[in-house]
């Protein structure tokens, strides 16, 4: 019997979609279990932990992201159908939607404007250049829309993609604690805030609280993407008025 050297096995496995797909699932399940063991500590967010572990593994093994994505794309693909599936929890809430319509509309307009102005304003205070400001502006909306907006404005779409993910992580990590801290209890309000400020990752966090929160977040995510896409073409003119 010929023995296969470990390195040969690694070279074989690392090039298979199956390896990185399975590893992503294993790390995810492990991270979730760890959080449960630690009494559900919010800061041990399994998404953050899984991403950190996977990046570390890829760096250690000098694996390019494209090779990882060959496997991980099967998980990534499910984002589309999952977004469509948000219609079901939304449908279950249809009886309440007419009471919530005006509050949601006001929240979306305020939220979309504040998300843009606060991000661009703070970065400008720290002396970020024009291209970075334009890349940052759509950070609170879902990735495909955000990248499209950044490109049209003259930002760097790749940078926007990374900023959108980080925004989502921050929203998922600190959002619920912050909102409860300022006395927000209404599930619909928590959902809309997470969906508006932290897009799909905020929506995923909202779903962990309950279907009401999740449905509201999904709706807010979709509508705030449209609103931001309509508002942001005004930004370069606004910056020009401020002499930037």
């Amino acid at each position, binding site marked *: 019997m010929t023995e296969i050297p470990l390195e040969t096995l690694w070279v074989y496995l690392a090039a298979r979609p199956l390896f990185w797909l399975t590893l992503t699932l294993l790390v995810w399940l492990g991270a979730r279990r760890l959080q449960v063991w630690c009494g559900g500590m919010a800061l041990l967010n399994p998404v953050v932990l899984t991403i950190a572990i996977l990046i570390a593994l890829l760096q250690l093994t000098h694996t390019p992201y494209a090779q990882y994505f060959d496997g991980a794309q099967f998980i990534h693909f499910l984002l589309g159908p999952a*977004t469509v599936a948000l219609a079901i929890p939304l449908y279950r809430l249809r009886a309440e939607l007419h009471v919530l319509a005006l509050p949601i509309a006001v929240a979306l307009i305020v939220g979309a404007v504040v998300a843009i102005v606060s991000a661009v304003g703070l970065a400008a205070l720290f002396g970020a250049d024009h291209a970075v400001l334009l890349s940052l502006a759509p950070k609170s909306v879902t990735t495909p829309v955000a990248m499209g907006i950044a490109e049209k404005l003259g930002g760097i779409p790749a940078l926007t993609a990374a900023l959108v993910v980080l925004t989502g992580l921050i929203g998922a990590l600190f959002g619920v604690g912050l909102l409860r801290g300022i006395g927000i209890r209404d599930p619909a309000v928590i959902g809309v805030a997470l969906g508006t400020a932290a897009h799909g990752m905020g929506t995923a966090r909202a779903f962990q609280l309950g279907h009401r929160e999740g449905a509201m977040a999904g709706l807010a995510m979709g509508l705030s993407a449209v609103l931001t896409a309509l508002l942001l073409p005004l930004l370069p003119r606004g910056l020009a008025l401020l002499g930037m």
Partner: protein
Amino acid sequence: MIQALTLILTCQLLGESIVLLFDLPLPGPVLGMLLLFLWLLVRGGVSVPVAEAADGLLAHLPLLFIPAGVGVMVHWALLRAHWQALGAALLLGTLIALVATALAMQVTLWLVRRVRAVRGRS
């Protein structure tokens, strides 16, 4: 199960096609969500398989963001070059946006309920 998945994927496909055809500023799956919502309103209910497929997909929603999240590693150099401005904008900006959205909705909700209560009394 397959019927339910086909319904969901068909809505997504229609959404993506309409967005592309009319150059709309929203992602295809989001339009797909609105199309499925309308379909359910027309049908007047959610069938058990569709509900099960949707709940199954949504139960692990955070997992679905991990491949994109790992993608942050590709832009590490760019992020590090501007870390102060980006750190402040991302952290504070996102928290400010969360609070502003929540307060705007809470206040409006309170006003709407107030108006309804007053109308209900008269």
